[in-house]
Structure formats: structure tokens, C-alpha cells
């Protein structure tokens, strides 16, 4: 590969100025675990790598009902954070099952998002938690729902002069449960055949007041199965509801066949795993009156 230039900027402003001037020719480098491969395969041929590691984008803080994670937060940092473990267990589980320790020490939350891989493991839980992301440019910041970020494999709405700086996770309402499931071909170092995250929130009367079902590797982008969610919202949970939602979620997918699995298998597994995740969350919410 032709070697680009490299700069470790000292401020975000400096990076934004570079991006304003050079656009896509300047590429932000974070964990680089994917960037290096894509540069070698010439998918990307940036002229300049902009490293923001001196800019403190690797902080985690809790702010007025939301958790803010810098884009440079590594997966290992998330795993080591006690608050996140309690508040966003599905995200932590996704990190735990991600690659292996040496990669988790490098790979960043921001990188997993900006890559825009349909199979990105961290995106379904983030979307299930209604994550917002902060995109900065020299013109200012915009905050956007993560669900609106992806447009296709490797494609996003991020402009050439923008940098992803932060991920904001609103705290789940009380009486919520969340779950993450990854179906891989081995227990570590696996790319997901299907991954998914769900969140269920119960209202005052015990009915589902809100639901998220987010699927990875099931469509060109991480996918919210909104029709399946709608089948749950406003209803009391039952085995029948769960089964129907699982079937519906599977219908919403449009997966591909690749070296890991066939389209048909991915569709079937979506149904199986959505059902399992819903049942597990229901258990977490203190399901009563159900006989296993």
C-alpha cells in the first residue's frame, strides 16, 4: 500500500480543520483494526491519517440521564466499566464476545460504528438503547440517532468533513431489560452470522410500553425490526406474542448468502434467536405465570 501521511492532532479543532480542507482524503484513525486491512486491500487510500488519541475522546461519563462515551473508547474499556455493566448489559455482552483480548484492546466503539459493517456487533445493542451519536465538523456539531446513520454496507450519512466524536446512551427507563445474542462459528474471533439485541420496557400496567429489536448481518445495514416491535408494544407479554414477534422479525430481514451462512439460515436463525432474546428479557423482567 502507498503510505499516507500521518498526524497526531492536539485538538479536535485541528482535526476538524484538516477534514474541512481535505475531506475524504484525510481519514480518522482510531483502533485501526479494520482500517489497516482496508488500506492494504486499497478499499481506502487516504492521503492523511488523522490520529485523535491526544484529544481525550476515550472518556466515559454520565450526564443528566445519559451515558456519554467518546468515540475512541475501546471495547476493553467498556468491559472494565462497572457502571456500563449495570446499565447497558447487552452492550457489555457484545464486547465480551467480540474477537479476542488483543483486538478488544485496540478496537473502538467509534470504529465499530463508522465501519458500517452490517455485521458490526456493537451496533445492535447501541441501537436497542436508542443511542445518539455526535458528528462534529468545523461548522459545529450535529446529534443524530444512530438508527439514522447507516445507508448501506460501509455507507453512512457522515459527511466528508465530519468526525464521529461521541456516542450518547440514554439510560433505560425502569422496568427495562435488554439482551444480546451472537451466533458465530466459534466462541472467539468470529464474525457474526447473525447478531441481535433487544430491549423491552414495561409500563405501569405490566404491558410492554416500548420495545426494540435490532438485527445485525440480517440486512445491508443494522436493522430495527419495527413491525416486530409493534406487535409487542401495548401488549402483555405472552408466549404467543413472543413467537409472533420472532416470526415477524424474521420477515423483516433481507440477509445475504456468504461464506458463513446462507440467506435461508440467517432468516431462520433470526426467528429462533429473537424468540430466545425476548424470552430471556422477559425472564429478567420477572416473568410470572409461565411454565417452561
Amino acid at each position, binding site marked *: 500500500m502507498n503510505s499516507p501521511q500521518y498526524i497526531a492532532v492536539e485538538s479536535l479543532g485541528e482535526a476538524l480543520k484538516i477534514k474541512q480542507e481535505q475531506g475524504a482524503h484525510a481519514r480518522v484513525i482510531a483502533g485501526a483494526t479494520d482500517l489497516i486491512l482496508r488500506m492494504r486491500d486499497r478499499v481506502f487510500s487516504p492521503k492523511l491519517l488523522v490520529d485523535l488519541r491526544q484529544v481525550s475522546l476515550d472518556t466515559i461519563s454520565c450526564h443528566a440521564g445519559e451515558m456519554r462515551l467518546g468515540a475512541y473508547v475501546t471495547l476493553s474499556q467498556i468491559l472494565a466499566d462497572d457502571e456500563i455493566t449495570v446499565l447497558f448489559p447487552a452492550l457489555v455482552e457484545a464486547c465480551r464476545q467480540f474477537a*479476542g483480548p488483543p483486538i478488544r484492546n485496540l478496537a473502538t466503539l467509534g470504529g465499530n460504528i463508522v465501519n458500517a459493517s452490517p455485521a458490526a456487533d456493537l451496533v445492535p445493542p447501541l441501537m436497542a438503547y436508542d443511542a445518539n451519536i455526535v458528528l462534529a465538523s468545523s461548522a459545529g456539531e450535529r446529534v443524530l440517532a444512530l438508527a439514522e446513520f447507516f445507508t448501506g454496507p460501509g455507507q453512512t450519512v457522515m459527511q466528508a468533513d465530519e468526525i464521529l466524536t461521541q456516542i450518547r446512551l440514554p439510560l433505560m427507563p425502569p422496568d427495562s431489560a435488554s439482551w444480546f445474542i451472537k*451466533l458465530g*462459528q*466459534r*466462541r*472467539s*474471533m*468470529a*464474525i457474526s452470522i447473525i447478531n441481535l439485541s433487544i430491549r423491552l420496557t414495561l409500563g405501569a400496567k405490566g404491558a410492554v410500553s416500548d420495545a426494540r429489536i435490532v438485527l445485525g448481518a440480517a440486512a445491508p445495514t443494522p436493522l430495527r425490526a419495527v413491525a416486530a416491535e409493534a406487535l409487542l408494544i401495548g401488549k402483555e407479554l405472552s408466549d404467543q406474542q413472543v413467537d409472533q414477534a420472532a416470526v415477524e422479525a424474521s420477515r423483516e430481514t433481507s440477509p445475504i448468502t456468504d*461464506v*458463513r*451462512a*446462507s440467506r435461508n*439460515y440467517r432468516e*431462520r*436463525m433470526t426467528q*429462533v*434467536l429473537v424468540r430466545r432474546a425476548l424470552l430471556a428479557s422477559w425472564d429478567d423482567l420477572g416473568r410470572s405465570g409461565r411454565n*417452561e
Partner: protein
Amino acid sequence: MHESSVVGQWVSAPGAEDIVTGKARYCPDIQLPGMLTGKLLYSPHVRARIKNLDVSKAKDIPGVYAVITHADIPGENSYLYAYPDQPLLAVDEVRFQGDAVAAVAAVDEKTADAALEAIAVDYEVLSGIFDPLEAMKPGADQVVAGQSNVMMQMTYTSGDVEAALASADVIVENTYRTQWAEHAFLETEGGVARVDDEGVVTVWSSCQAPHRDRMQIARSLGLAESMVRVITPYIGGAFGGKDEAHVQIHAALLAYAARRPVRLIRGRRESMLTHVKRHPMIVHCTTAASKDGRLLAVRARVIADAGPYSNATHEVLNKFGEFIGGPYKVPNLEVEKIAVRTNNPITGAFRGFGAPQAAFVYESQMDDLARKLGMDPLEIRLLNGVETGTQLFTGVVVREGRAMKASLRKAAEMIAWEKRDQCERSPAGHLRRGWGMATILKGAGLGRGLADHAGVLLEMHRDGSLVINSAAADMGQGIITLMAQLAAERLGLDLSCVRIDRADTAKAPDAGASCASRQAMVSGNAVLIAADEIRDTLLSLAARKIKVSKDRLDLRNGRLLVDGEIHDLTVQNLAERASVWGYPLHAQSRYHLEYPDDAPEVAYRFSSEFFQFCTQIAQVLVDCETGQVKVEKLVAVHDAGKIINPGGVYGQIEGGVAQGIGYALSEELVVVEGHTLNASLENYVIPMALDFPELDIHVLEMPELAGGPLGAKGVAEGPIIPTAPAIRNAILDAIGKPLYQLPMNAERVLAALNP
């Protein structure tokens, strides 16, 4: 015989300290002054005619020292494992994704890459032939013009299969399919070559057969073999995949052309696209038995996809046929072996050499048969198993066969086979647990009629230290340790007094390839013979000096023993005395794997006569909703004859099982129209540490005195062979559905559950 202080003991490998400190040098670590980087240019097409090949621009790039094509090869433009049909550099046609068309050597990797890009090749893309069943039809387009696509077709018959089938009570008949499998040795293939002022070409080669490498390099350079020296540095695994030559010949050609040292190392993707794979096979098998469960006949027809070139195909299929009867008494057997040329990946040696595919077939057949008969899988195997004295369908008489049934019984005991139904069979609604066994035999050694020998050179110095010069390649399996142990044992030395270098054709005689589980037997015995010669000199001197007859003397822990009592004289004293008196303390020996004179004439070509026996039982948990299979537990009982190097023996067994689990469940090269789609360690899915089951290993010691040193047998291949069928039979036990295709990945298991 006294309890040994080295043989059978857990000792560190010579060189272990170099490995744990990072000092051990593998091919990529070799640095020579002025060394260039070598690279190969491959065709992007799996089948194409080369209309024009222009390397002139590449040659003009500053820093490029050599660019060679087929026209620049001074000698033969072919590999030579058995048949010289694979070119080193393609001449007028490329026939698979790994055919190289040019090689370059440049000052650094970047310049070499630029040179590759500057080579202009004009291809006329041809339609390839990818389905062996189509390719073998008369009139099919020929993969190699002028040659039949049917590379090999041979039938071997023993007894009267037709009559046996007609009289059988029970018959099972199935078609099995196996996949392309990848060795994935962690160190990719590499070679470093240098031409010195006298014209001697020295090649450091990551290989299994240094003398065969030397022959191939010499014939391609057009030099006498005496002008070529091959050294194996540390080797990062091989498993059969470095038995056949790879880039070491190209490295030598480039160094010869550039007159500067060249290092050529394959990248991971390049490695996976180019070297031989385990043969994918389609096997149709019919097994017949009487109603009391006795085997009456086996008929098998195998069609193997060879890829465009022979490589080790003939030999692998020969072994497939030799072992298709399993470790059983099969009175009537017929096996037809067909290999077909295609434009798919090339195929050849991989640990087990045809026996893993055969075992998947015969051990699956045994369980299907047992189910049909309502017999226990253990019972039907014990009923039909070979014993000492059994004559196999090949004509070979098993000389030491106790381990067949002993391994079955031991494995059953270890996993509590009889009590397995007391275990939870369905720990949750969607989970099913099951147990399955497989037992195998596999020859150790190349087989009768083949030159199966090894030489070695030992020299003791006047201080009592010993050097062993051997050309047996150690790829991690531990042959170096074993040789050092045997020499130390015979000469009464501490292991630290024995120095053994990596294989070097300039220092040691031919030891043949490190393959076929043979080195422990041939090089091990050669070391014993040479060590005994030196030992005899030492003891003769001692006998003369202290006036005691030689048969009362022994050497141990660096001391002379007289009637078992420690004497003042040390081995060092004796060595010093020998030196002063002018007695030679060096010995060269050669051991040829001898097949017993009283053995009957062997009907099957190149049959092995020394056998590894191995039984494995797997306990699996199947997720019936996802099809995923978890191997929870596995017991492996293996007969090593006699354990010399336990670290190596246990390591080989664990490694074989791990590779067997991958072969069973997840490993498969996805090849579409000749192109491999998953040529990476990310997408070719090999189980890792967390996927590994609880593994319980037991090693039986039933010495094969006619074969290896002190009764030891090779153990390298046996352990990978029963794993896949054991898991298959465990899945069958769990879900009640048989699988006939490898790997048994989640989708295939799910398809079996929901046909």
C-alpha cells in the same frame, strides 16, 4: 532393563529455550547481507491461456534484481513429488488459482510489489472444469490437453463381494462427501536461498523433506545435487502441507538469477490459495453384515477431486483404499479409486493421507449398521475388530493388534459408556446430548516396496558430549527430542550433553520425509544403531581397562556401571581414553524399515504393516434450533507402542483431536468455480482455545517390537482420524439423524433435523 532417566520422561525439547525466548529462527527470521525479497505473480483466472507475458517493465524498475518466467528456468520447470506435472512457473496455460506465472526479487517488499504490478500478462480466459463428476465423463473438456481427466482409476478386490452381498442379512449403503481442508500451519511456506562464490546453492526451507527438496532444487537449477544444500531452520508446523515443495525452488531460482540472497515467504492468503488441500471425496459405500453383526463385505467407490495436477493424489488414494476396511475383519472387499482432474485447488498430503476420509465413511457405516441391527456401537466394533494375527483384506497380517480392542475398552471405561444413559440427554427443550465412538487403524511408515529408510551421524567428543546430525525435519512434532533421548539413553548421557541441530543435507545423510508417522521409527532406530556402535567402543575400552567382561557393564547418568554398581570411571573418562588411543567415536547408521521375512505376500500395493490404533469417544450437545454442535467432552486412547517422548506424544494426540474437531464441524474451503472465497484465518473457521472440549487422553503401550525403537510407533496421524466420525456418531445418537457430509456445520445439522 532399568528405569530410564530420559526415555519416557517429560523432558524439554532441545531448542525449547530458544522458542520461549524468541531466539528460534524460522525462515522469515533469517537475515542475510544483501538479501532481496522474492515474490510470485499469480494468475487472477483459474483457467486461461497465456497469450503474452511481458516482464520488461518490471526489469527496468530500480531495485529489481531478477524477474523470471518459465523461460528463465535453467533446468526442469516442474515440481517432482511423484509425477512432474505441475509447473513451477506456468508456460502457456494457467490451470488453478495457485499457478504462478513469474517471480521477482527486489530490494524490498514494496519494490517487489511494484515489479509484480509492472508485469503485463495477456490472458485468454477459458471456461474451467469444476465438477469432477462432469469432468470424468467421456468427451469432457480436458483440464490438461492430451491427458484424460481421469488421472487414476484402480480397483482392488479381495474375496467375492457380490456373493457376500447376496447372502447378507443387513446392508447399509450411503454416499459420503468430504471437503477441501486447509493445513493452516501458523508459519506460512518460505524459503531463503543464497549462492556462494563456489556456486553452491544453500536453501533454508520450511519443509518436511530436505533431501527431496535438494533433489528438486538441483533439477530445476540444472545443477548436481552436490551443489545444493538444504537446511531446515525452525519450522512453524506442516501437517503434510510442506511435504511437497512450495516456494523454496523459486527462492533458489531467484537467488541464482539475481546472484544475491533471496527470501521468499508466502502471505497467508497466498498460502491458502496455492498449496495442496486435503482431497474432497465423494464416496459411495455399501457394507453388509450377518444378522449377528458380523461384517461380510464392504464395497466402496471413491471419486476424488484432484485439481489439475497429480501432487500426492495417487498415493493418498492408495492409502484411502488400504484403510477403507477399518480395523475390522472384512472377508470380502472391493474398492475402486478414481481421481479426477479439475481446475479446482490442488490436493495432496495432509495428516492422515486419505485415512480421515476413509474413517469418516467406515465408522459412520458401522454406526448405521449397529442401529439397523439394534446393536450397541461398542459391541459391533469389538465383535469385528482385528486382533494379533488377523489377516487384513490387503493380505497384511497384523503382528501386534491388541490395542484395537484395548483402546475401545479403555475409551468406553473412561467416558463411562455403559452408564451414559444416566446422563441428562436433554438438558433443555432445544438441546440434545449424545455419545459417539470411532476406532481406527493407520499404518506408520510408507509401506512395503517403498524406500523407507533414514540415516544419521553421531559423534562423541573427548569430553563426552555428543552431536547428532540428522536430516529428519522437525516441524514441531518432536523428532529431534526423541532422537536426543534415545542417544542419551544408550550412551548414559544427560540430555544436556546431547546437541542436535536442525536438519541439514550437508551434514547428515538422507532421512526421507517427515511424513507417514515414520520418523520416530526410522530415524529413531537409526540413532539407536549408531549410538550402540559408540557405546560398544566405550564399553570395550572400559572392559579392557578394568578387566571385566563387557556384558557386565552399562552406562548411565554419565557413569560406568559394573553389575549395576556405579564405577569411578565416567563416560567422559572413556571418551577421553578413546580419543587418546585413537578409537573412533563417530558412527553413521542407516535404518530401513524392515518388513518381517515371514510375512505373507502382500496383495495390496504399498501396504503398511505397522499400525497405530486409536479410539475416540465424543460427547456432544446439539442445539436443535440452531444446528450448532458443541463437543463437550472427548476421550482419546492411542497406542504409542512405547512412549519415548511423552511431551510429543500427548501433544500430537491433542493436536490431532483439535484438527479433527475442526474437520468435523467447521473447516471447509468454500470454492466456487475454482476460486476460494474464504482464504483467511478469519473465514476458514478453525476452533480456538475456547472451543476446545474437555479432553482426556490415555496412551497405551503395546510395543511393536518388529518396528520402531524400543517398540515405539509413530503417533502423528492416528489422532486426527477418528475424531470426525466419533462426533458424527455422537450427533446421530443425540438427534437420531445421520449426517453424510463434512463439515457438519450448523446449517447441515439443521438440515438433517428438518429435511
